[in-house]
């Protein structure tokens, strides 16, 4: 199987996010960047499918020289090949999708795996957008996956339950927690990954389709009435929920 895993580089989820001096992006000072947590499920699934069926797993990231660290993590986990589309710091989903699509066309993967969303812009659109560009089906937010006889069978979350979706290969799968337990790279593999080659590609230039006007911290409009735990406090809370918030 020829498997392409698309990864992104994001701030560690425990990071404290502050708005940067341009008022449009975060302040990256002191932020630790990691492989997008959902992409770890994608890498792991790719490796397991290769272990079962043979083939190659290629990891790709759209980014800058700095993005090499997440490719090294993917290499340490066990991917065969790492590709960096090296240009600007990605600031537009269309730019990312177009460049992923351009590369995918050159290797014709049987399966493209990615995380259900990257935890920076939380856009949840890459599997569908890429699928459309490649003319391939996509299944999003998948927590169980079987590949057999040239067909993917996937369980995905919907409101009120799950559905099972079938799609013929080649297809794209966006990975959800529960799909697998990603492996931790071992120290010798981390060391070896440092000297492995990373293929660099010049990005296709695209016209941005969206503009970020500003970034702000969420406004705190909460009432913030803090009560004790006496019976009178509980009576008061219920009264507030009933009469002030009008939610019960």
């Amino acid at each position, binding site marked *: 199987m020829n498997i392409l895993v698309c990864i992104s580089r994001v701030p560690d989820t425990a990071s404290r996010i502050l708005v940067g001096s341009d008022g449009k992006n975060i302040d990256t000072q002191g932020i630790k960047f990691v492989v997008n947590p959902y992409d770890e499920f994608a890498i792991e699934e790719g490796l397991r499918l290769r272990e079962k069926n043979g083939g190659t797993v290629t990891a790709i990231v759209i980014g800058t020289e700095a993005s090499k660290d997440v490719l090294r993590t993917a290499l340490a986990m066990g991917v065969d090949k790492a590709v960096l589309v090296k240009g600007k710091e990605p600031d537009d989903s269309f730019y990312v999708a177009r460049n992923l699509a351009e590369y995918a066309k050159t290797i014709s993967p049987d399966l493209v795996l990615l995380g259900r969303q990257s935890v920076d812009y939380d856009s949840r659109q890459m599997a569908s957008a890429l699928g*459309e560009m490649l003319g391939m089906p996509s299944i*999003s937010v998948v927590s169980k996956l079987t590949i057999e006889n040239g067909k993917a069978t996937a369980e995905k979350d919907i409101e009120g339950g799950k559905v099972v979706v*079938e799609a013929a290969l080649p297809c794209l799968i966006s990975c959800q927690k529960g799909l697998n337990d990603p492996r931790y790279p071992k120290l010798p593999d981390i060391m070896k990954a440092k000297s492995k080659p990373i293929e660099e590609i010049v990005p296709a230039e695209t016209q941005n389709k*969206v503009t970020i006007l500003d970034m702000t*911290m969420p406004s705190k409009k*909460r009432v913030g009435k803090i009560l*004790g*735990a006496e019976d009178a406090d509980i009576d008061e809370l*219920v009264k507030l929920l009933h009469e002030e918030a009008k939610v019960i």
Partner: protein
Amino acid sequence: MKKILVYIEQQNDGLKRTSFEVITAARNISAGIPMVGVILNGNADVIKSAGDYGLSKVVNAKHSLLEKTSIMSASAVVYQVAKSEEADLILFAGNAAGMEIAPRVAVKMDAGYICDCVALEVTEGNIVASKPVYAGKSQIRTSVDSDNKVFSLRPNVFTASKSEGSVNCEVIDFTPELTESDCKDVVVNVMKNEGKLDVLEADVIVSGGRGIKGPENYHLIEALANTLGGAVGASRAVVDAGWRPHAEQVGQTGKTVSPSLYIASGISGAVQHLAGMSTSKTIVAINKDKDAPIFKVADYGIVGDLFDVLPKLNEKIKSILN
């Protein structure tokens, strides 16, 4: 803007609440620009209820291949309707289906797409969308540069309200051009959470965290959720400990919810949890630790032991509801 196309959905005998939310949002930014709806294999009598919300025309796409409920075919249909209606602005509910269809339609239309919007406003003729980023730790205002524009709206954030004076909703049947190659993904089985309300659909959620101490105590959460007709949620710690299923997890690696009432009990309020529930309309926190971060996002807080508080709160709410 020339025309707004709204993707609406039928569920059982009515339109989904999220569809009314999206129609209302479209109406609020339309400023006289025509609006039209699109639905797949809808029932004309059901569709007419969209008129109460100000939608005067809905294109009802009918095709035997649409019974396969494929994301690819739904996307093809919305695109065909957008073209024939000459719509340049398309709105979706940001539910599971909308989140998969919208990006495909955007690519087909060469449109910029902004997902998971929590506010839309018109500024100098252009639509400015607000969207949480970094799991809600910050928010951006963003606009689409291309002529065609696609947005998806976070469920339960936009209020559905009927328009002043209901309009007659004209339902027009439309036969899209579809082939098997438009249906490469097909739903083969649907597994409903039997008898259990999903956090994504609930108007009230009662969630438990590490403070609940063990799965055997979760009946306290369930009892309150039952009284309120709500769903049971869980923090990541509780799910990772195996006390509750992942389907109930609220937060960055779980579900993003926005109910009218969210009650967090025994949840300290890690940023990853806050990310999943901070747009809830009213938030109640119950925690022993008065310094727990959850109190910073709460409208109302009870500093106390949930083992005392939950049963009392449950009884009190029962007495009010009766």
